[in-house]
């Protein structure tokens, strides 16, 4: 279905998200931080990017900003994963250009529904 | 070097086929039988590495495709006079289940020659009479007559049990006197 980039420094989270998405027929590439993700995004084409916010080397907000600077990713849906439901984090993501967010903890169904929403 | 034949795979299906089948071998004038399901392979005799301070019936250990396996001398075990081992001597490699829930081991026994595979049913297997001190009765499952021959059927697990060595070590009699 879609090619999705999943970015999170927690391997277990990545595993869970990847497993869920693949189970629904998507193609998934994983990255452990913003730097890796950016490198992947440059050599590959993704239809959706899902990124954690708190990561070493480059956090999710900065990654979002950087991605929006790439010609191929100006309109691609970028979703941030955040543990806070506080508006501050959501807004920071949006200010950086993110499409929307998912609040942790989420269950696989919520993840799939959100991805579906964003792919149309 | 030594040749070896695999006798059987211990799969569930072959178990039912091979139940009550015994491989017999010769030691001197007597013929002994062992449950064929316990026989892993048969090898020719080759040199053995002795183990210091082991009882006389433990001949030593050999290299069985990368695993160290001990070899028992049944003549010593039974108190029969020993002979020279040569090219015709055979080693029967057995799967031994420990008595008392010990784990399974692979061990070999030295015999003069391998004889036949016989089918001996439960009824045909008779209790052996008490032979006194000559053979420890635990070692025998029973006796049977096949083709007019008397076969002494052995209980591998008791025969190859290493508890004897433990006991001997404790009493200090394993160490040969200086």
């Amino acid at each position, binding site marked *: 279905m879609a090619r999705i980039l999943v970015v999170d420094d*927690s*391997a*277990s*989270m990545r595993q*869970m998200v990847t*497993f869920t998405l693949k*189970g629904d027929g998507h193609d998934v590439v994983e990255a*452990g*931080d913003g730097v890796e993700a950016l490198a992947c995004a440059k050599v590959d084409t993704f239809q959706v990017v899902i990124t*954690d916010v*708190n990561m*070493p*080397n*480059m956090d999710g*907000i*900065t990654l979002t*900003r*950087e991605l*929006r600077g790439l010609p191929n990713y*100006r*309109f691609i*849906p*970028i979703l941030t994963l955040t*543990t806070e*439901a*506080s*508006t501050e984090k*959501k*807004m920071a993501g*949006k*200010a950086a*250009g*993110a*499409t*929307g967010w998912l*609040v942790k*903890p*989420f269950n*696989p*169904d919520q993840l*799939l529904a959100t991805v579906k929403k964003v792919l*149309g | 070097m030594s040749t070896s034949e695999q006798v059987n795979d211990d799969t569930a299906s072959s178990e039912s086929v091979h139940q009550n089948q015994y491989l017999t071998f010769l030691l001197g004038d007597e013929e002994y039988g062992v449950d064929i399901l316990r026989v892993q392979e048969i090898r020719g005799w080759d040199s053995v*590495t002795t*183990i*210091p*301070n082991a009882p006389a019936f433990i001949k*030593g*250990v050999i*290299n069985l495709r*990368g*695993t*160290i*396996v*001990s070899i028992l001398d049944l003549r010593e075990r039974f108190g029969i006079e020993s002979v020279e081992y040569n090219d015709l001597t055979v080693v029967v490699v057995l799967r031994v289940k420990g008595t008392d829930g010990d784990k399974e*081991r692979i*061990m070999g026994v030295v015999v003069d020659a391998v004889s036949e595979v016989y089918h001996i049913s439960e009824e045909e297997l008779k209790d052996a009479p008490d032979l006194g001190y000559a053979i420890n009765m635990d070692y025998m499952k029973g006796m049977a007559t096949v083709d007019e021959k008397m076969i002494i059927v052995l209980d591998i697990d008791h025969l190859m049990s290493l508890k004897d*060595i433990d006991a001997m070590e404790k009493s*200090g009699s394993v*160490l*040969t006197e200086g």
Partner: protein
Amino acid sequence: MSIDMSQFHEAFFEESFEGLEIMESELLDLDVGAGDVEIINTIFRAAHSIKGGAGTFGFMNVSEFTHVMETLLDEMRDGSRGVTQFAVDSLLQSVDVLRTMLEAARDKTDVDEEMVAERYATLEAILKNEGGEAADAPASSAPTQEEVSTAPGNNSGWKIDFVPHPDLLMTGNNPVHMFKALQEIGELSAVVNLDKLQPFTEGSPEDLYLAWELTLTGSATKEDVLEVFEWVEDECDLSVASLDGEGKAAPEPEVVAAPVVPAAASVAPAPVAATPAKKAKIESKQKKTPEATSIRVGIDKVDEIINLVGELVITQSMLDQAGDDLEALADSVSSDGGETQKANAEILLRLSKGLAQLERNTRELQEGVMRIRMLPISFVFSRMPRLVHDLSSKLSKKIELVVSGEETELDKTVMENIGDPMVHLVRNALDHGVETPDIRVAAGKPETGTLNLNAFHQGGNIIIEIKDDGAGINKAKVLAKAVEKGLVSEDDNLSDHEINNLIFAPGFSTADVVSDVSGRGVGMDVVKTSIAKLGGTVSVSSEEGKGSTFTIRLPLTLAILDGQLVTVGSESYVIPLIAIIESLQVDRKRINQVAGKAEVYKLREHYIPIIRSREVFGLEDDTRDLHDSLMVVVEVEGAPAGIIVDDLQGQQQVVIKSLETNYRKVETMSGATILGDGTVALIWDVNGMVNVHKRKLNRNTTRA
């Protein structure tokens, strides 16, 4: 779809425990007062990760507990709270509690609820009292909008005016997708409004000039509708009114909207400022390298490969011998003259060269494979700072820990098992070695004691040194205790080295008061046994008043051994090189008899017992004159002994095979190996040899 989350648990636990280590080591590094923001950030992120994962995978107690820690750390990192010693200590203890909670979750056992509650309360108290604001309750779901939903039952539907701002598409949102989402909750009809549409020559092709009037019928609530537009609240004008005329326009979302960034130029190329600079650490501390360049592999897979390589080494040795023969054959063939002969010789030589190359390849493969299981000893050393920190405050002593060689690598399994013995030795050094500050000053030493941890490779082994500048071992006391316990007799002429190493004897303890830190006398000999199980040795050297150095020697791997081949009787045996001090030829003049049967040898300044291996093995011919015989001097329990062998062969690396798998444990042998010619050679356990020798000696002398 239901997914079994438990398949991700192992990874979660692994990374959480790693996260806890990071938290602990960084907390120890944190300076009270200002506190380095980067360090706090690192600790925060670790806690944050654990919280996120715990929540996702259903470990709610862990998630809640971590949340409080996270809140505290958050305040510290944004400056609204200072870094106090109390807070740091509380966080350190919380890390311990968190560790037990995770272990309980992993092992499916119970956790000490009281302890958890207590620690939780302490953290909350800090949050409420000192500075900072009171901790928020764990984030509840966004209550940003007022509840305007009307009772769903009465409502037939909604009239939605959706006017997106021109830059809505820049966020990656797509109105069409939103309409599809609406279609999933009701019947949708839409009328597009083209009023704002720009001519092609004007405006930007990336901007959105359309607006819609939507009608959604069905049982969806207003909340459901608003949720569809949740993400684009700031990028549109939205009004949702009931078709039945109730309620008015939904209030504008009250969130503090970041100013809507205009047009396409909004994505300013922000400099990558967020990359935290890695703080250059002067002390030797293990740093977490990014995971990007490694993969996790089950250790059984690695062991499988190591086994296979071991087999390869054996096969290789067999071919080795053949290779030598081939060369000799080639020589003899070519010297016979003739063209065909020369050609044949060529073939044989090529074969022989090929085998030599194979040998090199195998050797390299083996080394490479061994390295897979090797990890830097820093994984063990990293436990020490915390230990030293806690112990020194407990004992009211001042101790500085200096670590070196932490990048030295050793086998993973060896490392897992060397931790406890090392901890015990460090405890011992701190408890009995280093003196209290006043005693130190009185002795002219600096108030702060120094504990040195050092590791390095030597030959095929790793050497670990634990050195303190404390009081050293009190030889007189040790000797007296040993005599009292019957371990030695008063007349035994023991060297200083031997006396010091008596502390490793079973049942030994000279602590005047059995301190709960390391007393009780079950410590040192257990340390020694644990290390022996890994194929290593431990010994101590000490100078009274100056300090002690404990030296642990360990083989680099468990499966392969460097051995000395010897012959006794008709068999070849292998003696582990790690146990051998030296080999020599016996000089008759240096042999002495003691108490009838025991023989000793004068090796330079000391007398060492002579052990005749033939006798130990019960072979005949064991009373011959030993002059010019070969003696291998080995180290057993810190003391040397000389074992007589018939012949010395070469040294080689052997693969250790178990005797116990199919046979049983043999007292004098630690295992077996398969030599190049396919035969079995037993590997000596020198400890066992000495024990058997002693037993025979006792029996012979008592019988005499």
